[in-house]
């Protein structure tokens, strides 16, 4: 069976940072990523990030990913596997099972694990939401920004948080018309400047509105939106929009199946958007060999994911008795 000092599950900003940090202390690191490329959410982010200069504010997301990969390539003691999913953790013997591509299956026994599995998109129920043309914002971004495929011609965006606003802007950049953005609250949830950016390009934002129905037989040909009252009940006039894509940007939840499987103590924290592993300051969970970092530890952002990844990386190295640089 394969062995490794530190196994990092997930190759987004958190996992890449954890891997680089643990490797810098001489640990032998194995990183698995289910996607075809490393970088996680970052490879789809064509916009400039916020924050301070030290956290690479003003740099586009995919560039940040390139910088992390460059750092990682400087270490000979890191093995990375893409198209490779960690499918299970066996608490009895600490073995992780992985599937690479369609047919290769292997087991690996790491001394320490960093779970950096990121997040999953939420969806909301409405009639006909099964129709082709109803997408999560992540899928729309992957189509446009990773594969260069225009997802449709006219979009209704559901949710005016940062993801909804940023993806709307990117859709316009890709030549797709954004018919409108509906938002259940009475103000945009994302940064005001991101809203201003799409407003000045003529995109209406319907506050206190929701989608009530998708229209179409074989695929989406329209959407119906309606105002909602204080109790979030639809009321008043229904408005039909002629769209072929309905893009959902209504929130994320931490991806934590493997943490549950490992028997880590889990807590529900609304501010972190769902169940997360109880952890200490060093990102170590209640399981002595498992750390967590990034969106898997609670939905935040790439800058915090990178910091958490670094902390987890140092902490695993320390737990292996390699806590200082030579």
């Amino acid at each position: 069976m394969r062995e490794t000092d530190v196994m990092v599950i997930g190759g987004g900003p958190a996992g890449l940072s954890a891997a680089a940090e643990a490797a810098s202390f001489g640990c032998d690191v194995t990183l698995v990523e289910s996607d075809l490329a490393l970088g996680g959410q970052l490879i789809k982010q064509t916009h400039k990030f916020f924050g301070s200069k030290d956290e690479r504010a003003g740099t586009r997301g995919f560039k940040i990913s390139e910088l992390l990969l460059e750092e990682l390539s400087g270490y000979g003691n890191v093995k990375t596997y893409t198209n490779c999913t960690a499918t299970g953790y066996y608490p009895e013997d600490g073995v992780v099972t992985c599937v690479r591509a369609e047919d290769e299956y292997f087991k690996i026994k790491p001394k320490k694990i960093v779970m950096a599995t990121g997040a999953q998109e939420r969806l909301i129920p409405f009639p006909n939401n099964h129709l082709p043309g109803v997408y999560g914002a992540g899928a729309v971004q992957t189509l446009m920004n990773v594969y260069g495929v225009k997802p449709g011609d006219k979009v209704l965006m559901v949710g005016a948080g940062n993801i909804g606003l940023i993806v709307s802007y990117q859709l316009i950049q890709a030549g797709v018309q954004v018919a409108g953005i509906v938002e259940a609250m009475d103000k945009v949830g994302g940064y005001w400047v991101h809203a201003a950016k799409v407003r000045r390009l003529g995109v209406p934002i319907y506050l206190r509105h929701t989608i009530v129905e998708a229209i179409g037989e074989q695929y989406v040909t329209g959407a119906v939106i309606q105002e909602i009252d204080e109790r979030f009940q639809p009321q008043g006039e229904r408005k039909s929009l002629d769209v072929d894509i309905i893009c959902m940007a209504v929130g994320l939840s931490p991806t934590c199946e493997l943490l549950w499987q490992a028997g880590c103590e889990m807590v529900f924290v609304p501010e972190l958007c769902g169940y997360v592993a109880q952890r200490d300051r060093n990102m170590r969970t209640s399981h002595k060999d498992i750390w967590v970092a990034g969106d898997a530890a609670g939905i935040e952002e790439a800058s915090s994911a990178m910091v958490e990844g670094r902390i987890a990386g140092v902490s695993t190295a320390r737990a292996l008795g390699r806590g200082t640089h030579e």
Partner: protein
Amino acid sequence: MTDKQKLFNSGILTEERPGAVSPPRDLWENKKNGLVIIECPQRIPCNPCHTSCPTGAVVPFDDINDQPQIDYSKCTGCARCVAVCPGLACFVVDLTWGDESRALMKLPYEMLPSPEEGRQVDCLNREGNVVAKGTIVRVTEPMHDKTKVVQVEVPKDLVMDIRAIKVV
């Protein structure tokens, strides 16, 4: 909620606020190369407008969440902040440009196609309505990072309305 509040809550500036003020008129009227207008009225963790300004015109932030404040006497209208700001919230307006009725705006632009010099474009207000025609004077890419700064000649009386262009 008033209509004004509702508009603001959807991303439209309706009046001056901390982080979104216009330059003092007398200084502005005679300032060759223009002065910056920043429209960033919300407290967010961001400061590249300050860290990128070569003259210190965007005053240092006590806290990274602060709204930007400007010392107009130091602004040279260089438009570096226009190119850097991830919120596309910085604009430069040169009121000394051209004849009495014209002004030059330096606006961030991240769409395709990139307009060529001399081209007529639509000028859009904060709600995306076409309010005038403008003429492209220059297009630069100051940070070589795909955000362009378009210099566009516009009617002077619309500089507080125009915030984007559309190539038609």
